[in-house]
């Protein structure tokens, strides 16, 4: 029977994948064609979604972007045998956007049925956990340390050191918490893992539980991701049924289970200590550190809290060895990073590669410039708290240190592209507004500074006392940067100051600009 792969990733659904799947189903039923339709995650080529693949003697052949109106012509072109058609892209892995990638974390995403344990096992699943069970906790942590893996949520803290700290702590119980509160605009990698390869996250968290001596894990997923929640909930039940979660996993004597918890629309709950408070049933208010969560985390117990992508990298590290993973990357940024290219960009999607590409390569070569066809003016790296970069800094390599050296941050690996119609004063104002809406309210620089910052930028936009108000914003940003308790208030100066410094012309009133000319 011919197998046909249609993504059900929410990104593909947003572009009509369900309608296309229904049209295909109707047509094969009407014509009596024998086809097995498999719903997959996404390959991450969103400019080609819905991207449909057919299994042929020459491998899988892709067609995209497929609309409902293309379905009849695809059948007429014998696409089930890989026939020629205007939408045929050939073997997806030979498509330039995929061929240049190094897919370690996203090797299975878009390829397998996310809810098939057989598919997962056939594509290398569970090998990392099996090896961890063989070599034991200390050796497992040593592999993670050797890999050089750093927290993929944004802070970039070495994962091995964090795990060792929690493993060394003694307590009646410990917790593993996965931060799936992926709130940064321009990022969607966590979502793609949960929708496209959920057992990988289960496996990574189980390895962590084994390594630190925890038997209980929580995944805290934002409520804006109902599709990820549905897929991951189903995956948890299946893993439990097959003995990959629960008591005495695969007869090893190790017990571990995972509970999925839904956030409630708060951005600051992506900050790890606010997330822990939220899990405990409190307001998502940031805690002062120390104590570190690895010493005193969820319910006061030693807790490892890592991002989805950090846990997702772990099965591969255990399976292939830490050195294998560390061989990718540059400087202190080891391994691969799933870069998420988004916004006003021609070829938007997920691009997993070793650290070290420059911003220009990512935006111009891979992303193909803007979707609008106008010149690229700015890119924001690392979410709403990341800096805006102008074209003149497009030689900056995409790694933790290089971006930090230019007053930016890598964050969760998102890049949002803007064309030349963007008004950077408005973007700076939006950063302050967002901070005001989402501030947890605990510390004054963030709670009040963001509101005052918004008002002051409004005055600049209105052309009132521009020089004095710009100086005020600069000063306020220093206070927020050094006086805030967490990264929300502490990092909001990145977008504001980068907009101000790299695009000063947008902060001049029309009268001043006229005078300058």
């Amino acid at each position: 029977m011919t197998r046909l792969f249609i993504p059900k990733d929410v990104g593909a659904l947003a572009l009509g994948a369900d309608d296309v799947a229904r049209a295909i189903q109707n047509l094969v039923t009407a014509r009596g064609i024998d086809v097995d339709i498999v719903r997959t995650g996404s390959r991450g080529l969103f400019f080609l979604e819905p991207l449909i693949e057919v299994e042929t003697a020459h491998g899988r052949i892709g067609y995209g972007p497929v609309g409902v109106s293309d379905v009849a012509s695809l059948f007429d072109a014998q696409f089930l045998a890989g026939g020629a058609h205007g939408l045929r892209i050939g073997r997806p892995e030979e498509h330039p956007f995929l061929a240049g990638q190094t897919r370690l974390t996203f090797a299975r995403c878009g390829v397998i049925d996310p809810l098939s344990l057989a598919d997962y096992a056939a594509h290398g699943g569970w090998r990392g956990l099996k090896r961890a069970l063989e070599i034991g906790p200390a050796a497992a942590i040593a592999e993670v340390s050797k890999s050089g893996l750093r927290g993929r949520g944004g802070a970039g803290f070495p994962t091995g050191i964090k795990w060792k700290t929690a493993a060394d702590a003694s307590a009646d119980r410990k917790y593993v918490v996965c931060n799936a509160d992926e709130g940064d605009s321009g990022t969607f990698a966590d979502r793609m893992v949960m929708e496209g390869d959920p057992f990988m996250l289960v496996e990574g968290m189980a390895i962590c539980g084994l390594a630190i001596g925890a038997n209980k894990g929580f995944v805290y997923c934002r409520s804006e991701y109902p599709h990820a929640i549905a897929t991951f909930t189903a995956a948890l039940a299946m893993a439990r049924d097959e003995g990959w979660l629960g008591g005495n996993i695969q007869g090893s004597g190790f017990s571990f289970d995972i509970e999925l918890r839904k956030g409630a629309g708060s951005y600051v709950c992506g900050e790890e200590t606010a997330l822990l408070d939220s899990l405990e049933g409190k307001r998502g208010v940031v805690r002062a550190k120390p104590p570190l969560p690895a010493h005193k985390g969820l319910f006061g117990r030693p807790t490892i809290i890592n991002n989805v992508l950090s846990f997702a990298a772990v099965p591969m590290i255990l399976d292939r060895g830490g050195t294998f993973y560390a061989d990718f990357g540059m400087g202190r940024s080891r391994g691969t990073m799933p870069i998420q290219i988004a916004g006003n960009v021609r070829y938007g999607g997920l691009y997993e590669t070793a650290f070290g590409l420059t911003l220009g390569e990512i935006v111009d070569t891979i992303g193909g410039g803007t979707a609008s066809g106008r010149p690229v003016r700015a890119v924001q790296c690392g979410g709403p708290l990341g800096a805006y970069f102008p074209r003149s800094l497009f030689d900056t390599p995409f790694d933790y240190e290089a971006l930090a050296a230019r007053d930016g941050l890598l964050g969760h690996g998102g890049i949002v592209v803007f064309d030349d119609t963007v008004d950077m004063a408005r973007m700076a104002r939006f950063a302050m507004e967002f901070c005001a809406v989402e501030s947890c309210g605990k510390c004054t620089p963030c709670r009040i500074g963001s509101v005052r910052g918004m008002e002051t930028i409004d005055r600049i936009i209105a052309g009132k006392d521009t020089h004095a108000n710009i100086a005020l914003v600069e000063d306020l940003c220093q206070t927020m940067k050094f006086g805030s308790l967490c990264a929300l208030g502490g990092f909001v100066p990145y977008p504001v100051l980068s907009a101000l410094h790299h695009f000063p012309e947008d902060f001049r009133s029309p009268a001043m600009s006229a005078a300058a000319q």
Partner: protein
Amino acid sequence: MRENKGETPAFDEGRVQQIIAELAVMEGPLLPILHALNEEFGYISDEAVGLVASALNLTRAEVHGVMTFYHDFRRAPAGRHLLKICRAEACQSMGGAGIAERLLAGLATDWHGTTGDGQITVEPVYCLGLCACAPAAMLDEKPIGRLNLDKLDAALAEARGK
């Protein structure tokens, strides 16, 4: 989602107690309970807050504080359908703000508001993870990418027809 099940049921103390009893055994049960109440009734009433507080041995103020911290929990019923429009940067880069402005004007409502016929409540959202096909929105649980007014009108007309 509640919005697709038709009318919002009236406050029912027995049902509230049942939801609380089912979930109170969890570790950190407050958010799951509030979510369940919000989904069941479409909002969380003051009576329900009191019942949750006494079941979890918290003050009403504590439960109120938690409930009002999170954008998802409603204190009054929403319209029959919930339309979330992304306001974040990636959607702005593709003209999302202008689309939202025109839509709100067309519906004669504002952010967080409900249309006069009680059908559509419009909420802002900061990122739906659909940033590579921006601008984006979600109507109940139906995602819409590369949003424009035509697509929105069609989706809203379909929802209203249900």
